[in-house]
């Protein structure tokens, strides 16, 4: 995304006196679309205007009551080029408003992220804020640039200021995860289990629906935000009797666990001090019939664990058999092994999390 610079105009409503203040000397970016004087000033509205910027595909308009734009009335309101004006409505009389404009020479929204927004709109879900949509779009762009997006089968971002239904969208499959028994949703953080009955079903069965996730080339990602008990974090089992000693996909949140399995019924040969730290991206990768790597963020440990099969069940989060976790999870993903791409994945999601 390439954004041009900004300029600022002010308008005071209710007086019909318009001020347009050029502040080009303070611009950080060059070749800005210059905001010009507002027109059509009424009691509760005005028309923001700006000069065209050569090559612009879309303009972003901010409106604020503060000259430093520390708060927003409108934020990143998109106006498609070649239009160079926008009617700002719903304002208060006798109030000074400031507006600024940026230009983008590229389409703002990645097609796959736009598909997520379109799906959510169709379902009647509450979309994230405009500013967070830009960050989520950038996340998709970063995952594509890092060669990650195309290797994922399922991907959900629970940390959002959209509603809980938006948080459960599978961005890869354009369908929904299911929140079973109301894990608590916290905006911009994710879902927290209650330790007794709540969990999330991905509705993704890698055995029947996996494309990138295969027997000997597979990965699973879980962003642990905090408050995990010692129970299983995610698994392929709602069955109380099959949680152990069968072909499983599991991650477990205990310091000495060997119960991290990927397409295997066998336990890891060596225990990991792996799962207790929160605010951390945990992932398991299988790169062959014998080789696996467990990552805490970008810190990987390799080991051997023979593949036996892909569990034929929907992968579930915050539950393993009769055991329920109290952790908070901010993201989940499954796909092909991402050993080489792991650092980019961790960095891209960390950038997103720290920006929202």
């Amino acid at each position, binding site marked *: 995304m390439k954004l041009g610079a900004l300029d600022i105009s002010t308008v005071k409503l209710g007086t019909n006196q318009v001020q347009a203040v050029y502040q080009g000397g303070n611009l950080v970016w060059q070749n800005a679309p210059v905001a010009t004087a507002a027109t059509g000033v009424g009691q509760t509205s005005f028309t923001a205007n700006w000069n065209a910027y050569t090559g612009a595909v879309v303009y972003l308009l901010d409106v604020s009551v503060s000259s430093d734009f520390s708060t927003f009335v409108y934020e990143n309101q998109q106006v498609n080029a070649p239009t160079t004006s926008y009617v700002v409505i719903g304002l208060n009389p006798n109030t000074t408003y400031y507006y600024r404009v940026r230009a983008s020479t590229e389409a703002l929204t990645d097609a796959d992220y736009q598909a997520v927004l379109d799906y959510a709109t169709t379902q009647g879900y509450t979309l994230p804020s405009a500013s967070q949509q830009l960050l989520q779009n950038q996340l998709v762009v970063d995952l594509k640039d890092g060669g990650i997006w195309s290797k994922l089968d399922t991907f959900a971002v629970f940390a959002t200021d959209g509603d809980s239904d938006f948080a459960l969208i599978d961005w890869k499959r354009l369908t929904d995860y299911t929140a079973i028994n109301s*894990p608590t949703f916290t905006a911009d953080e994710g879902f927290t289990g*209650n330790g007794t009955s*709540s969990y999330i079903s991905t509705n993704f069965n890698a055995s029947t629906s996996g494309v990138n996730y295969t027997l000997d080339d597979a990965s699973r990602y879980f962003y642990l935000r905090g408050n995990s008990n010692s129970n*299983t974090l995610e698994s392929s089992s709602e069955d*109380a009797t099959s949680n152990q000693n069968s072909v499983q996909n599991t991650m477990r949140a205990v310091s000495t666990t060997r119960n991290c399995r990927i397409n295997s019924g066998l336990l890891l040969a060596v225990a990991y001090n792996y799962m207790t730290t929160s605010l951390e991206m945990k992932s398991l990768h299988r790169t062959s019939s014998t080789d696996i790597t467990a990552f805490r963020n970008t810190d990987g440990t390799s080991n051997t664990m023979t593949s036996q099969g892909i569990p034929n069940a929907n992968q579930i989060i915050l539950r*393993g058999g009769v055991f329920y976790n109290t952790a908070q999870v901010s993201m989940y993903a499954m796909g092909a092994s991402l050993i080489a791409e792991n650092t980019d994945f961790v960095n891209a999601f960390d950038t997103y999390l720290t920006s929202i």
Partner: protein
Amino acid sequence: MIVLHPNTEQYNALNGYRYKSSELLFVKDGSDRWIVGTQVLNDPNFAEIHDALNKLERIEYTPFPPEPEE
């Protein structure tokens, strides 16, 4: 910890209720009783069945023995 426990009639009426991305599925506790956490009372997607959920018996949750460490 207090959880919600349905009788047979309530179980049949409520189990499997879905709205948008939320679903209600009673699970067993350590005493082999169907239960669900009280968080369902605050789920906006369960607004339609809120009154029925609020009529479920409140009982003390029986935990399972700790998950074995392997």
